């Protein structure tokens, strides 16, 4: 009566591996695979297929069900649900399962799944009950029961997960400590490190829609604090911020003591071992200092949304004529200290667009900045000081890439295109994605991090950095 299982399909819609489906008939998973493949075939764009597909029962004795599915790279993960289940539970579980697979296999692809089918089977068994209830999904606990593939162990320990205790002690000794004897479901007991370290990454993403006059129509900054804890014993951390009022709509990892946070805005927690997301938040620029931050969050009726300055401006002149058009786009950084990195601007030119003639160049400004892309080899497309363009004919998307946009520099792209239709129908928006390192929009500052440990005393190394990215839809 809940999540009936997981099916993983390859990009041709054929099943690679699936969980047991022991409480259902053999036809049941097949029915769902067919339903999803049917829906995908019917849809013009596979991205537009509804994420929850109704699956009719194949005979009168069976109840009908629904199939939740998500795409991950080339794969598609299916989660059939029967009964009245929250589809969000299915999606949340799929996401968690995919994250677990990533942690175990590094990359999730048809090849890695086939190579490690025994691991995947074990993960199916441990994470999802045949009755449809998700079971153990905390990686700390899972690693006690499903031992990650040995070849990848090294790689994983480099990326910050600690398997040493499990592997060295082998299965027998690991059991002596006792799986799940830990009172905290997210942390295992008996973790030991020579160097105790804890790192926090403050990652913020800016999303905005801008109209042709450069006015921001809607924008928000969504942030999260990713942590990587390598601490011995059972450390009790408390983290406070100098400006917690910028945080709003916080969603916290279960390890955080809610009461403490709601009262004092202090994150007090016993961290899981390894990587985890400590909290999600929305940045609120409504940062009037208030005597009691806790009360303020209660009293703000409607959280005013973020008002972050746009990191760049775009001037786009697009002229459309019969069977084609020309464009002239200029992007100018408005930052004076930070460089925008990995800038990618996408322009959808509409069905049947082609015959692109385009040139990209660097304009004035931002002198003296060492351009990382400058020495790169010119690729087949036109390139100038690292900027390049390409055209995906199938999706009719013109892509303009600039590896680094130094402060206050300006870049331009101009050219023309033709369409098979008489009236060109490009989308009236340019989507720009960019990264900024060592920068956060909210300027969230960590005040103090205390790590307390009852049994052993150590001073852990603490590191905090910020990085941000953005996605702006600029209409013209």
């Amino acid at each position, binding site marked *: *009566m809940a999540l009936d299982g997981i099916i993983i399909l390859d990009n041709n819609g054929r099943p690679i591996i699936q969980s047991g489906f*022991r*409480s259902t008939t053999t036809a049941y998973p097949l029915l769902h695979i067919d*339903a999803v493949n049917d829906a995908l075939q019917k849809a013009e*764009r596979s991205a*537009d297929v*509804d*994420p*929850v597909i*109704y699956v*009719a*029962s194949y005979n009168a004795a069976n109840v*009908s069900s*629904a199939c*939740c599915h*998500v795409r991950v790279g080339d794969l598609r993960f299916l989660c059939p649900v029967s*009964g*009245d289940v*929250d*589809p*969000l*539970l299915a*999606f*949340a579980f799929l996401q968690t399962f995919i994250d677990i697979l990533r942690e175990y296999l590094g990359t999730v692809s048809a090849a890695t799944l086939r190579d490690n089918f025994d691991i995947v*089977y*074990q993960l199916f068994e441990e994470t999802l009950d045949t*009755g449809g*209830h998700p079971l153990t*999904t*905390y990686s700390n606990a899972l690693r006690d*029961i499903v*031992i990650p593939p040995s070849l990848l162990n090294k790689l994983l320990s480099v990326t910050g997960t600690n398997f040493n205790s499990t592997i060295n002690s082998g*299965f027998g000794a690991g*059991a002596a400590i*006792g*799986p*799940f004897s830990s009172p905290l*479901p*997210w942390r295992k007991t008996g973790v030991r490190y020579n160097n105790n370290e804890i790192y926090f990454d403050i990652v913020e*993403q800016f999303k905005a829609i801008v*109209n042709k006059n450069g006015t921001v*129509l*809607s924008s*928000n900054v969504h942030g999260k604090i990713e942590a990587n804890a390598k601490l011995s014993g059972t450390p009790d951390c408390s983290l406070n911020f100098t400006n917690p009022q910028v945080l709003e709509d916080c*969603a*916290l990892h*279960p390890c955080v003591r809610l009461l403490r946070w*709601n009262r004092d805005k202090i994150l007090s927690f016993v961290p899981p071992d390894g990587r985890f*997301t400590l909290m999600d938040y*929305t940045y609120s620029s409504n940062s009037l200092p208030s005597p009691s931050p806790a009360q303020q969050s*209660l009293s703000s009726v*409607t959280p005013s*949304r973020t008002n972050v300055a746009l990191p760049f401006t775009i001037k786009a002149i697009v002229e459309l004529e019969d069977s084609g058009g020309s464009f002239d786009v200029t992007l100018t950084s408005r930052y004076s200290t930070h460089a925008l990195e990995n800038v990618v601007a996408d322009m*959808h030119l509409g069905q049947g667009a082609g015959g692109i003639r385009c040139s990209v160049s660097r304009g004035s400004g931002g002198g003296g900045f060492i351009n990382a892309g400058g020495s790169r080899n010119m690729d087949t497309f036109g390139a100038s000081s690292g900027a390049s363009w390409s055209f995906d004919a199938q999706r009719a998307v013109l892509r303009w890439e600039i590896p680094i946009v130094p402060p206050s520099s300006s870049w331009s792209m101009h050219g023309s295109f033709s369409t098979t239709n008489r*009236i060109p*129908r490009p*989308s*009236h928006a340019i*989507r720009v994605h960019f990264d900024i390192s060592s920068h956060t929009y909210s300027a969230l500052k960590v005040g103090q991090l205390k790590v307390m440990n009852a049994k052993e005393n150590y001073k852990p190394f603490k590191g905090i950095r910020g990085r941000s990215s953005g996605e702006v*839809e600029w209409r013209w």
Partner: protein
Amino acid sequence: MSIRAPRKGENYELSVDLNSEYREKRKDAIKRVIASMTVGKDVSGLFPDVLKNMQTDDLEQKKLVYLYLMNYAKTQPELVILAVNTFVKDSDDPNPLVRALAIRTMGVLRAEKIIDYLCDPLQKCLRDENPYVRKTAALCVAKLYDLKPELVIDNGFVEQLHEMIADSNPMVVANTVAALTDIHIAASSQPSTSSDDPALFLISASILTKLLIALNECSEWGRVAILNALARYVAKDDKESEHICERVVPQFQHVNGSVVLAAVKVIMIHMRGVRREDLIKQLVRKMAPPLVTLLSSPPEVQWVALRNINLLLQKRSDILSNEMRVFFCKYNDPLYVKVEKLDIMVRLAGENNVDALLSELKEYASEVDVDFVRKSIKAIGQTAVKIDAAAERCVHVLLELIDTRVSYVVQEAVVVMKDIFRKYPSTYEGIIPTLCANLDELDEPEAKASLIWIIGEYANKIDNADELLGIFVDTFTEESYPVQLQTLTAVVKLFLKKPDSSQGIVQRILNTATKDCDSPDVRDRAYIYWRLLSTDPGAAKAVVLAQRPPISIPRTTVAPALLEELLGEVSSLASVYHKPEETFVGRGRVGADSLQRKTDASDDRFSTQKALQTVAAGQQAENLLDFDDAPAVEGQPSGLAATEVLSHTPAAANLLAGTSSNPLDDLVSIFGAPATPAPPSAGPHDIFGGLGMNSTFSSGNAVSLGSPAVQSPSVAIAPPQQNQQPQDDLLGLF
């Protein structure tokens, strides 16, 4: 029993390796067996060889062997018996992982004979010192109940589970709750269940306390299970409701969306019992941010969140009143997300934000995706109908869009314009020439029919109305039936308004329609008009030019009673489909019946049982009308599918689009049942369809065919009295 594989080939090699003296080789062989199993090869012949490897210290190997057993248990239960001893022995193993594994696997095997051996180890594992074993055993009880309920009852496992709710480990509590809920659902779905069946999981006040304590400490999945159980609890008084709400609200801050949604559901249910206004306000206010936060998730999650937000908004329109901007569509959002956002934006539209909305909608109308463009233009029409003060601005935007001369934009704008004319009669006559200038570009029946309706309606104000309608009269037989019907009505209107100049055209069309037309609907209508005009032109005027009831956008897409029920199901499939669970989980008629039964049984919480019954009755209509709601309609039980095919033939489509599910409704309404409440409750989710398609015809139909009940379901009829009038006239005629 086992059939030996031939002495060569892959299976033989595997069999040799499985019996190898080297550990590694054996383990590798087991992996290869499982690999063959994965790709669908039959390796059941290796059963005895695999079984030999079950006794091992290597946990991974043991798991693989168990996996093999589970796979073949269904097809070869007699072989599994051979493994029973090992299972029982493993359930006593010093290693808790092995104990848990054994008990879990035995529960899954679903073989009758194994089950008899399961009870003793299960008894022991429920009291195991290790929480991992206990929680695994708890779930095993639910599975045992599924196979042999009497064993669970006889062994007192249910009582034991009840004791385990007080377990010190929150994960054990969560799994116990999940198991008890499963057993409860299984037991209550049996018709013979009495209310004192021990299998029923009735949540008492003391259980409530324990659940609230465990809630804050267990994993996200455990929280969802506990929250779902809390949703079932019936609070004693408003103090208790308040207490539950206050304890559940912190869950809004959980990082997992399904926890948030489950918490929203609990709050929505228990808020009904809260009397303190300030607390209700506070709860509603706290509900908004976590829902909005879900919108920064992947599109699938966004969609589920949006569907639920849409539902919540219908009950509490104040939740997100200042948040319209977060629903602005990005051009690379999938269509299903955009459509849902659009609907919510129109729902949130008010005089203060209508300008932002309109400029946004205009932007969407220039996008690439045709479906989305059409829906955006429809949304402009809805905004105009919804907000009187903004109508003029909406019309202005529509005119700008017509100026683009993109065919489908123009056609959709014309369709939308018709609704605006309907809502604000005699206000925007000035733009009629602009619309008529685009006459040649219209090739879609709906757009044509709309323009013809406008011309007919304002025939006296348009100088060359007879010329314009003449174009359609000339091509009458080539047009689709909806266009024919509209042309017919429009010409008769023209005749009634300008009898002198249009005698010839009305003669011509009545002739053509009665003699050369294939559609019985068109023919019949022509006959009725003919008779009306020839016997009593005054009556004809009263019928054809009757005052039409004003249209408005329904505030809800579902009936109020159904809304209440769905809100109780927030965070479930029902809330995503916007249909009660029974309509898609149950089957056909049975589903409808059980819905009624459920309503009968339940206390009068939703006092509007009648409306629910209408929903059940109109369920079929809903499926038919719901062209846009693909996931729900696709593959409805076959009984309905047959009728659905019908709807593709124009005549039937017209009939279905215009009429309610039940022909009886029409009859009833013709015989003067006052204000039939029927169709709106079963209204399609898609207000667009309602405004566009249906009202075109119903606006003409309603009066001329004399069945006011055919007013399209989603166009709410404001004062029912007005309905009565043309109907009386018609009855007078008969």
